Every structure is written in structure tokens, then in C-alpha cells.
């Protein structure tokens, strides 16, 4: 009898111990539809972090509960988050690819009182919407503002034309680039909305208009992929480089997994971003090598993959610091001011805004060993989200 009681007690203890060690993380990403490719990068980044650091994470067990939020409409994301909180009783939330979904679920995250780590969604003011949002990805203002500044100071440009795809990230890019470029003494002489994100337009009329204006730099923001390929083609077809117009843009247009498809015409393209797969630091070397081993030599991680990777790094940090018992207020205390050596270089969570502070890298596309690669031209260290620093629009609240 005693033995049975003893066995039962130890069994119950074991269960209790196992439960204390398991941390459930609800991951919300658009696993299907147009966003599926982006979700895959983030999902792989998260899984890769857990795999690479399996020994470090022990004795804790991190279980990812993945939910597809289908579209940027908000409602499906709300259902997914609500069920993760009330049915699966997750300890931490992570993910968010489309900004509208992060905006729509903010009240729910606040009501659920769980830490929510954003691994992509870039609309600047999102972190103001819930006190439990922590962003490890970027704000749209990071790259745009940094490039506006660098265009004047490093590329010695005096005039610029901005061409952007007419959707919120494009508008944010326009606003942030223009603000920094003009603050540094340059003049934006034209702003051209160039079609929607849904379909690739014929860029020729837009680019001809730019050529006629003869700016020093032509700042372009379009979604990575087919849009970018068409931009490069049109830029070369109109001989704009020969006309002395430099093509520049945020790193979104040279997304690493799309870079090779852009062809040699992309050589000379200058971008500003917080990550590219060619960054020269030991963390990144390790990360890219592990990625290629895991997902094939032709697969390349991009900034979204790093977003997923760093989200998991932040979560593991919280889990270890709190000994597996996740309390949202303590978790926030642990994350505020957290410093980490990410593949993108040193990062920190700003204690005031819960947004990321990181380096921005100016790079040029070059040909290296028969493949397109990004050559570093310079960097700006520890960039905070300028939208919140400058208190612009909804970022002020």
C-alpha cells in the first residue's frame, strides 16, 4: 500500500514537474494564401532556433501551437488568438505577419494578459496599441529613415524621386524617407504611386517620368519578388544608370531568397536594411550554415526568417529567466532592455517603446563567385524606430 502511494505521489510529482517545464507558445502566421511564403520563412526561423539551441533550452520544453490566420482581414486572426488564449491556454503568443492583424488583435492581447512577440508586422505604431506587444522585427521607418539620411550624407544626393507601391508599407516608406532626406538637406522633387501590391504594373511610364526629372537618386519601394524583377528590367531598359540616376531602396526590394532571380541587372542596386544573408558576423555565419543544412543549399534565409529566429530567442530568454513560469509583467521586465547578438548584429529591446533597436546596413548588390551578393558600404548603429522618436501621427500616442 505504501509503495502504491509512494509511486502515485512520485508519478504526480513527475507530471507536475513536466507541466512546469513545458511552455506553450501560440504562433499566428498566414500559413496559406499569398503570405504563405513569408510565414514559411518565419516558421523555419523559429524552428531552427529551437533546434540549434536544444541543449541550452533544457530542461524546458517549448511547444509551438501553430495557427493559420488566413488573410489580413483581422477577424480570422482574432479567432485564432482568442482560441489560443482560451482553449490552448498558451503562455506566450508569437508571430503576426500582416500589420492589420496585429492592429486588430491588440485589444485581445491586452485582455488576455499574455506576452506577445511580433516577428514581422512593421506598421510603426503597432507597439503602442497593447502594453504586451514586444517587437523583434522592424518598423517600416527603420530602413526608410536611415536611407533618407544616408542618401544625402553617404551617397551625396541632393535631389530624389520616390516611387512606391500604393499600399501602407509603401506610404510609410515614402513618409520616412522624405522626412529624413529633407531633414538632411535634400529635396524630394516627385512622389509617384506605382500601382498596387496585387499585380505587377508596367513600370515604363513611371520610370520615364523619373528620367525626365533627372534626380540624383531614385528611391523605390515595391514588394520583393516579381515587382522588383520588373523594376530592375525597366531601370536597365531605360538606361537610367547611364543617365546618372542611382536606384536605391529599402532591403525589402533585395529580399535574400529572391535576389538570385533578379539577374545581373540588379548589380549596383543600393539598399538599406537591418539584415541580409551576406552580413559578416559569426552569429550570421552560423545561422546561414545551419539554415542551408536544414532546408537545402538553394534555400536562403531572409529578414523574415531572422524575425522568427529572434522572436524565439526572446521567448527562450524569458522562459529561462523566469524558470518556465511565465507571468506577463515579469516577462516584460525581463525583455525591456534585453540585449542579444542576433544574426543581424547586436539588437536591444527599447525599454520605453518595447520596439527593437538595431543596426541598419547600407549595401550594394555585386557579383561574387557567379552569384549575386550584397557588399557592405556602411552602417548606422543602434537605430531606434524614428516614427516614435519623432512622434509622428499615431506613433505619438
Amino acid at each position: 500500500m505504501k509503495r502504491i502511494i509512494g509511486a502515485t505521489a512520485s508519478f504526480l510529482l513527475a507530471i507536475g514537474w513536466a507541466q512546469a517545464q513545458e511552455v506553450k507558445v501560440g504562433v499566428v502566421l498566414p500559413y496559406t494564401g499569398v503570405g504563405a511564403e513569408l510565414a514559411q520563412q518565419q516558421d523555419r526561423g523559429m524552428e531552427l532556433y529551437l533546434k540549434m539551441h536544444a541543449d541550452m533550452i533544457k530542461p524546458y520544453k517549448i511547444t509551438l501551437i501553430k495557427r493559420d490566420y488566413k488573410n489580413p482581414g483581422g477577424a480570422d486572426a482574432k479567432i485564432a488568438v482568442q482560441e489560443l488564449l482560451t482553449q490552448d491556454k498558451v503562455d506566450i503568443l508569437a508571430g503576426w505577419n500582416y500589420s492589420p492583424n496585429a492592429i486588430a488583435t491588440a485589444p485581445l492581447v491586452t485582455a488576455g494578459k499574455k506576452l506577445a512577440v511580433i516577428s514581422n508586422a512593421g506598421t510603426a505604431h503597432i507597439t503602442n496599441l497593447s502594453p504586451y506587444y514586444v517587437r523583434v522585427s522592424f518598423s517600416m521607418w527603420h530602413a526608410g529613415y536611415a536611407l533618407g539620411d544616408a542618401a544625402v550624407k553617404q551617397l551625396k544626393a541632393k535631389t530624389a524621386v520616390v516611387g512606391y507601391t500604393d499600399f501602407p508599407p509603401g506610404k510609410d516608406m515614402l513618409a520616412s524617407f522624405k522626412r529624413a532626406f529633407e531633414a538632411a538637406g535634400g529635396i524630394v522633387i516627385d512622389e509617384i504611386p506605382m500601382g498596387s501590391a496585387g499585380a505587377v504594373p508596367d513600370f515604363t511610364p513611371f520610370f520615364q517620368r523619373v528620367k525626365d526629372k533627372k534626380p540624383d537618386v531614385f528611391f523605390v519601394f515595391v514588394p520583393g519578388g516579381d515587382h522588383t524583377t520588373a523594376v530592375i528590367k525597366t531601370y536597365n531598359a531605360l538606361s537610367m544608370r547611364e543617365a546618372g540616376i542611382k536606384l536605391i531602396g529599402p532591403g525589402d526590394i533585395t529580399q535574400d531568397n529572391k535576389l538570385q532571380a533578379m539577374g545581373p541587372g540588379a548589380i549596383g542596386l543600393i539598399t538599406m536594411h537591418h539584415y541580409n544573408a551576406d552580413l559578416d558576423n559569426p552569429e550570421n555565419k552560423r545561422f546561414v550554415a545551419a539554415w542551408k543544412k536544414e532546408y537545402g543549399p538553394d534555400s536562403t534565409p531572409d529578414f523574415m526568417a531572422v524575425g522568427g529566429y529572434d522572436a524565439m530567442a526572446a521567448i527562450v530568454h524569458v522562459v529561462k529567466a523566469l524558470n518556465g513560469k511565465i507571468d506577463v509583467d515579469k516577462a516584460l521586465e525581463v525583455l525591456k532592455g534585453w540585449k542579444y547578438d542576433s544574426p543581424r548584429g547586436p539588437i536591444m529591446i527599447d525599454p520605453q517603446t518595447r520596439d527593437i533597436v538595431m543596426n541598419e546596413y547600407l549595401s550594394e548588390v555585386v557579383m561574387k563567385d557567379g552569384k549575386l551578393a550584397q557588399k557592405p558600404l556602411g552602417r548606422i548603429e543602434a537605430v531606434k524606430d524614428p516614427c516614435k522618436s519623432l512622434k509622428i501621427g499615431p506613433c505619438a500616442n
Partner: protein
Amino acid sequence: MIAPALNPALHPAALAFAGRHQPRVWEPIVWILALVFYFAFPNHLGFGTELLITILFALSLDLVLGYAGIVTLGHAAFFGVGAYTVGMLAYHGFWNEPISSLMLAAIVAALVGLGSGLVLLRTQGLTLLMLSLCTMALLEEAANLGHEYTGGFDGLASLPIPKLLGLFEFNPLYPRTQYVYVLTVLFISFLFIRTVVYSPFGQSLTGIRENTLRMHAVGSPVRARLVTCYTISAAIAGIAGGLWAQANAYVNLTTLGLDRAAMVLIVLILGGCGRMYGAFVGAVAYMVLAHFLAKLYPTAWQLGLGFLLVVIALFARNGILGIGEALLRRFRAKRMPR
């Protein structure tokens, strides 16, 4: 005095026709199930609310597509107008009392329905289909351009929706109030639609769907009837949109998108159109399957759904309810060989 056997008013077909509006025995079951859901699945109420809103939206489409035979691909236009009416009034601090906002949403959507209906319903077939799509696209682009007022793609966040009747809070985490509220509105709207469908007006809509020329010949004001029906349907779609905005405390461009318009069309055709309960069956079948498949297989759930749709499109042209009706007919034919 006509002998009872010869009195046409007592013919079984005539009796069935005269009594077609009477509630069937099984009809309360649907509503009881909806109430059971509330108690049985308290953690699924967010999904349940979205499901009920989709049913209401599909019902509004059934009125134009199933009963009046107006083929439209732009019904989300009215859903979006309703959602933006509620959303913009609340966000900019003009008006946010839930029930009256919903009525305003219905009125604004009805006006848009009336205006566009007067133009659109001069055409039919493919032209009408394209024009309905264009109307929706125009509204969507207008909402995109006016992003200072509409929030554009990012939407209007955290709409301040006060307590319902000053008593029941719209809790985002446990959306009990939302569910009961939406269910009540759905029930009232359903009673209204049911009355419309079984009224002489509704009967004339069916006539127009079946043979427009003959309806002209019997002197029915065809276009006026269609525009009226379109306006009523727009108002109900507007209510569905308004409910969506209130339940989610959020509006963005997708309320006006083709995805939503196409989804509700699929739901209705899946369930069976022109059958009133087709909207219920279709929405439950489509959304429950999509929801649970997506939970099990977050990356590949659309495969299962696609398979179902292909099977329905190939073998059950009248939707799921159509299958049921065919089985019932066969069963009765066996029991009564004559």
C-alpha cells in the same frame, strides 16, 4: 356548391401553396442548436459569432441570388458599407450605441443598394456580374484613398463599442455578449426575410427569376421589384457588416474585398441557394470544416476544402440541401409507389 373533391382551393397543391409560410416542425431545431452551441462551446464563441455573421450575410445574398435570380459578385460592397458606417461613426467619436449604429448601417447600405441597383439592374447576366464587381472595387478603392478617414489597409483599430443596452460588455476574450447579440439580430432578420420570401412580393421575385418575360406579360413591375429586393438585401448585408465591425471592434479594407464576396457566394451555393436554410447549412459546412482543418493542418487545410467544393460542384448542383431533398424524394417515392 362545388363538391369538395372538385374544389380547386382544396387541391393538395393549392393547400401546400396557401400554407407555405407556416413554420415546419423542424425549424426551431436550428435555433435550439445555436443556443446549445453557446452553452456547450464557451471557448468557441469567437468562431461562433463569425459563423452567425456569415449566415446573415449569406441570407442577404440568398434573397437576391436565390429568390430574385440576380447574379452578383459584389455583395461585399454592402457588407463593407455597413461595417464602415459603424466603424467610422465610432472611431471618429460621432455615434457608437450598438443597436442604433446597426440601424444606421442598414440605412446607409440600403441607400447604396438603391443607388447602385437603379443603374445595375438595367443590365443582366455577365454585364450585371461585372458591374457589381466594379461597384465593389470602386468602393474599396475609395476606402483606400480616403485612408485618413477609413484607416485604409491598416483599418480602424480598437473601435470604442459601449456596453449593449448599457448592461452587457463586449469582451474580446470571451465574446459571449457578441454571440447572443448577433444571434438575436440574425433571428429577427431571418423572420423578416422569411416573411418577405413567402409574401406575394417574394412570390413575384421567384416568378421573375423563372421567367422574366412572362412576369412582364402579367403586368408585374419587374424592375421596381428587383430594385426593391436589391435594396432590402443591401440593408441586411449592411447589418451583417455592422455586426462584424462591432463584434471585432475593427474594420479594414477586406470587408469590401472580392475574397469576402466570393466566400459568401461559395457558402450559399454549397448550402443550396433559394432555400433559406441553405445559408445556414452552407456556412456551417464551409466554416466548420475550414476552421478545424486549419487547426489540424495550418499549411494544407485548403486542400480538404477544395476537394469538398469539387465534389459538390460535380455531383450536387443544388448544394447540400439539394442532396437532402433528392434523398427525401426518393424515400417518399418508395413508400408511396404512386
